[in-house]
């Protein structure tokens, strides 16, 4: 069986949930082989092994240096050359997509981004599912040339714990001078919100212009439900909430079990980021707001009174 390379998505060495999902998908297509660029800790190795990684390729971060994403694409291209994998999976983040784009050109391979599911077809090639045009269409596609390079969105599979061999193999890579042209000169880590990561969260509670700049009712409800907080672009552009939390075409695309839109009208660009959510709820004082066309449950009312009451009741019920 061919290997399926999974570029490990990690923050400072801690493996993210998206990686477990990709390892689970990789197992449908072949033998999962994790590619870890960084200092591999025992915990990280154990985590990868516990989601079925048969092999763990480890690349010394020093080789990659402060040179942004290009060297990572070179690492993968070298592994594609030596391991002839059945596919390469990366997470469909900004960085993951850029690595994927470069890898596709380097290896003369087809690329699919934003996959929300990947299955194996009868002949073993991966078939991807994507959601396009603001979630209005579901597209199934496959790569027809080269090594399939697939960028996978968070929550695309339920991670399945299975024990893999987890054999560690150190790989040395040579990074070209061309890859060193753009260099990171400063890094300012963001403060963690203490809430679930927006694209991974099971519940997202969002606020828009209707908050009038006061996100407290939104945040308090989010915390009562154990949810992530999102925002519309109107709220972000007004400086009420950071851009990292923007949901929509030019922000994050989320697909949680429950999405709550509060004081958000439901413009097409916002829908593009949340339309595929399982259950959608809205609170809006205008009964004509387009958001009500897609909700499973809607309340016509003022969010400043409705949300605190919901929060109080939820907190009470959760005891």
């Amino acid at each position, binding site marked *: 069986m061919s290997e399926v390379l999974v570029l490990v998505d990690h923050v400072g060495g801690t493996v993210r949930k998206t990686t477990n999902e990709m390892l689970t998908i990789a197992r449908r297509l072949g033998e999962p082989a994790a590619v870890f660029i960084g200092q591999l800790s025992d915990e990280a190795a154990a985590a990868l092994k516990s989601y079925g990684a048969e092999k763990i390729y480890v690349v010394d971060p020093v080789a990659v240096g402060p040179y*942004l*994403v290009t060297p990572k694409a070179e690492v993968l291209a070298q592994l594609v050359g030596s391991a002839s994998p059945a596919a390469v999976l990366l997470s469909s983040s*900004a960085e993951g*997509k*850029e690595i994927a*784009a*470069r890898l*596709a*050109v380097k290896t003369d*391979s*087809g*690329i699919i981004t*934003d996959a929300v599911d990947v299955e194996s077809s009868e002949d073993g090639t991966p*078939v991807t599912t994507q959601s*396009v045009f603001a979630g209005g*269409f*579901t*597209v*199934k*596609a*496959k*790569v*027809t040339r080269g090594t399939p390079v697939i960028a996978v969105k968070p929550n695309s599979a339920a991670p399945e714990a299975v024990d893999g061999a987890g054999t560690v193999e150190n790989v040395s890579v040579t990074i070209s001078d*061309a890859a060193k042209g*753009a*260099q990171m000169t*400063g*890094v*300012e*880590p*963001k403060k963690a919100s203490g809430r679930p990561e927006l694209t991974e969260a099971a*519940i997202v509670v969002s606020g828009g212009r209707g908050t009038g700049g006061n996100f407290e009712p939104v945040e308090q409800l989010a915390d009562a*439900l154990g949810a992530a907080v999102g925002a519309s672009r109107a709220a972000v552009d007004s400086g009420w909430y950071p*851009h990292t939390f923007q949901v929509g075409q*030019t922000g994050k695309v989320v697909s949680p*079990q429950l999405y709550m839109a509060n004081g958000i009208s439901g413009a*097409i*660009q916002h829908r593009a980021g949340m339309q*595929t959510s399982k*259950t*959608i*709820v809205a*609170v809006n004082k205008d*009964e004509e707001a387009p958001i*009500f*066309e897609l*909700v*499973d*449950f*809607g*309340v*016509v*009312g003022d969010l400043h*009174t*409705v949300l605190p*009451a*919901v929060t109080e*009741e*939820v907190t009470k*019920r959760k005891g």
Partner: protein
Amino acid sequence: MNIVVCVKYVPDATGDRRFEADNTVDRVGVDGLLSELDEYAVEQALQVKEKAGDDTEVTVLTVGPEKAADAIRKALQMGADKGVHVVDDAVEGSDALATSLVLASAVQRTGFDLVVCGMASTDGGMGVVPAMLSERLGVPGTTLASAIEVDGGTVKIRRDGDTATVTVEGRLPLVLSVTDQTGEARYPSFKGIMAAKKKPVETWSLADLGVDAAQVGLDAAYTSVLSAEARPPRTAGEIVKDEDGSGAQALVEFLASKKFV
């Protein structure tokens, strides 16, 4: 300095967007426009030019059907100096790999110090063309900039990531892509609209670029769409009016019925 801005002509997102029988996006039968996200690229290019205050020239480049000339015209009205339109029947149905190949050949022909792209096209939206372009041209890429600064031969950008904000520096020539966080794009002024009429637009075919038609188009695509289905519209749910707290109560009941509480 020679700045090339890559802009795409896309179906209007507020109109009806659809697929054709061969599963390619219908770009002819629907209304189109300059991708709104590429307006930010034009804006940043114009700002770089204005700041440089020298003989810097901004060329807008698009690969697309006849009607894509509208996208070039809009950019010229905003203030770009000249346009290049690559139009060739063979291009129809091209994927990102083929598009980036054509763009790279065209950019090489115009000559460039700086290539500016949008963050993603509002239709395909993969956001991969800029990285592919940088790869094909063999020059550095600084993508997804939320702020840029060009100083002599150096480009400095700020990039807002999920876990950190990073600053990235590269030397010209390079490929840059900018997000909608870089700041509002200008509207064409009346003067700009009049001036645009006299600005030169060249039309190139694949043959002009020395690109083999067999390398582009649907037949050359590296991916194949097996099916494209409209999602069933969401069925309208229950809407209640809040009266004296009844809305919150009903909402909590709903959440409880779905086991969220």
